[in-house]
């Protein structure tokens, strides 16, 4: 580990507090008002629920750092999970099915990357398009039905525990660690900062901007593939609407986490906190039996408050 893992370069000072404050406040409020909240069981519960979103939010952070966006990630997750389910049901081989899901993620990631890097179509538009394509494919393959008959072996991935820790949490932790290393300890990560901060710098350094961009979106696609595995295992089935809107949840989590949309200024740990904050909020509100309509409003408030705090800090 390098001594400068959290050097200023990796941590936009002005933005740390926003999400941290919100998270602390939320935990405090729920801890005080709800008996069931601060129990180990519930904490595990929150973390487990947050895993899938985290798997999407991690690559989303990287992508946003390159001044890009991936609106298709939720739909890709859905389609990948459907392909996974169909494959495992027809062939009975979980491994094959998982590879198929990854393949789907890879293809869409590659597609996004090529359209953006080679055809110069803005990320928002590219992924809005591929979002539609993935959604359409999901509907066409399933005709709106959910795909069932998943073997236990897959469901186990979500329900099993190792050393008392649920497998999903371990997977998510692993994913976080990998992304962290990628971002702060590999050329890939260094160049991600450059993609958002100053592409000319890459060009004169003799690094292919296109190649890097494509890799970034492929990373997003693959993570969506992994997320699809968890999602399928969790629902023990695949459904064409399962992942709808998750891309926005992910983007919101990243933004709440303090990653700004310009100049490659990103903070991975913030994203983690952002995802947890969303999970804590939803869980706490459910424990307190807050009416659903109020819950909806609270989520909106969370996003705005977190960014508002950041904004205030930034002005100082």
């Amino acid at each position, binding site marked *: 580990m*390098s*001594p*400068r893992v959290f*050097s*200023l*370069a990796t941590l*936009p000072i002005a933005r740390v507090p926003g999400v941290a404050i919100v998270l602390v406040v939320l935990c405090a409020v729920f801890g005080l008002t709800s008996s069931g909240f601060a129990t180990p069981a519930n904490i595990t519960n929150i973390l487990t629920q947050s895993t899938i979103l985290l798997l999407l939010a991690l690559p989303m952070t990287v992508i946003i750092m390159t001044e890009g966006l991936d609106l298709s990630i939720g739909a890709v997750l859905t389609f990948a999970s459907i392909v996974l389910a169909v494959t495992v049901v027809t062939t009975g081989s979980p491994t094959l099915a998982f590879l198929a899901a990854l393949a789907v993620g890879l293809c869409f990631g590659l597609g996004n990357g090529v359209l953006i890097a080679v055809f110069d179509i803005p990320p928002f538009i590219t992924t809005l398009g591929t979002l539609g394509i993935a959604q359409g494919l999901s509907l066409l393959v399933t005709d709106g039905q959910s795909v069932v008959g998943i073997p236990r072996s897959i469901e186990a991935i979500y329900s099993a525990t190792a050393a008392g820790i649920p497998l999903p949490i371990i997977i998510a932790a692993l994913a976080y660690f990998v992304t962290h*290393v990628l971002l702060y*300890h*590999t*050329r890939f990560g*260094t160049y991600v*900062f*450059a993609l*958002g*901060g*100053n592409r*000319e*710098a*890459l*060009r*004169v*350094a*003799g*690094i292919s901007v296109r190649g890097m961009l494509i890799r970034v979106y492929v990373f997003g696609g693959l993570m969506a593939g992994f997320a699809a595995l968890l999602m399928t295992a969790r629902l023990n089935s695949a459904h064409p609407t399962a992942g709808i809107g998750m891309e926005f949840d992910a983007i919101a989590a990243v933004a709440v986490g303090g990653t700004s949309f310009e*100049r*490659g*200024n*990103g903070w991975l740990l913030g994203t983690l906190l952002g995802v947890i904050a969303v999970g804590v909020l939803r869980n706490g509100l459910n424990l307190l039996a807050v009416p659903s309509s109020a819950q909806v409003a609270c989520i909106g408030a969370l996003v705005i408050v977190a960014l508002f705090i950041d904004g205030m800090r930034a002005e100082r």
Partner: protein
Amino acid sequence: MADVPLFELRGISKEFPGVKALDDVSFEIRAGEVHMLVGENGAGKSTLMKILCGAYHADRGSFFHNGEPVTIHDAGAARKFGIAVIFQDFTLVPYLDIAQNIFLGREFPGRLPGLIDRRRIHAEATRVLDMIGFDIDPGVPVHSLGVAQQQMVEIAKALSQDARILVMDEPTAALSDRETELLFAMIARLKAKGVAIIYISHRLSEVFALGDRITVLRDGHKIADLLPAETTPDQLVTLMVGRPVDTTYTRPSRPTPGAVALEVKNLSGPSGFSDVNLTVRAGEIVGLCGLVGSGRTEVARAIYGADRVTSGEIRLFGERIGGSVEDSTRRGMALIPENRKTQGLALARSVGDNIVLAGLRKLFPSGIFIPRRAAKAARAIIQKLRIATPSPRRAVATLSGGNQQKVVIGKWLHAEAQVFIFDEPTRGIDVGAKAEIFRLLDGLVHNGAAILMISSEQIEIVHICDRAYVMRSGRVVGELPHSELTEANIVRLGIHQ
């Protein structure tokens, strides 16, 4: 020197859609020499350098390294020959730290495959920074550095590739005198080490002070390749511009200053200046000088209402103004900002759109926009300022630096501004255009405008201004009446004792 050149380009041609950027240009560089590359903007200097470092591909032409024919297909190849470039617009990544920037693209592999060794990167970076005598923690992210410091990082980046051939594109544009001296000292050291330096500059003083050899480009053609001793500044300029231009700009007689137009009393602000007092009268040009970072720009922006002020007052024609850009502009103040590309112009929009933008209210009091009338107004300005554009519909981005600057000024002429603040009006503008800009300023004051002008080139201040204020670390440390307005005095007041 009869020996084979260290590196040589022969018969280089490069065409971009619609324009021939380079036409059969040959260029050679010898070890241990400083080779000045001069020419107006758009002459092809940058293109030539981009080809040298492999960022562009030449349509025609060949390369020779120590007389051996070689090819340069990408940046990597160029680096093999020890070619390193310091571009004018920096190639630094804001949210990476100094060390990572210095070794961008050349990261050291770590113990595990795929990883990079950040400790070593930092160690190496520290070494390079020491070498150029730049004392700073390599872990600091670049976005928190000032322009001059970033320049130093750029240089460190180039040297870290133990460059044999170092290209500097207007390195002093953003540097204060002290920093410039540092740079020159370093160039001397590099020469001693046998490094060849290609130095692009608009500042004739530098050309003659540093150059061992001078190559002149014009409109993509090589015009001359000569020794400093063989020429004079005027001849050189004539070569660059293609027609005689008098650069020894002599200040014509100025009208006797009229009423006080702009008055600033005890102005202090969070952006790092305090207790600033100054006045500008109608019909005079007042300089605001000092080192880069002494707070000149900050004061200018605050006067203009672009930045907050904590105390003090600003009076325009005796009336106190509200400290908002809208208010200032409505009352006839104008700011021609430091960086025209990011602050002055909507590059993607047309010349016409940019020219009328500030004056829309005056031109269309009803609020109804009439394209024909707008175009007419724009054409008037284009003719008045001799802006080289075939039509107001051209995108500003396609104009040369000088003409872009004229568009910014034209915007305020059209808005009928009375008090102008010029922040580095000649930065990155070639000699010919500079003289024109100066005449423009004269024209303005003769029509009773008041001008406050910021410049890092004392010589300009001395030539143009009637008086000047000198700033140091956020305060006005002195006022120089015309009689005492000399470079020596400016420097004496400007640098820390």
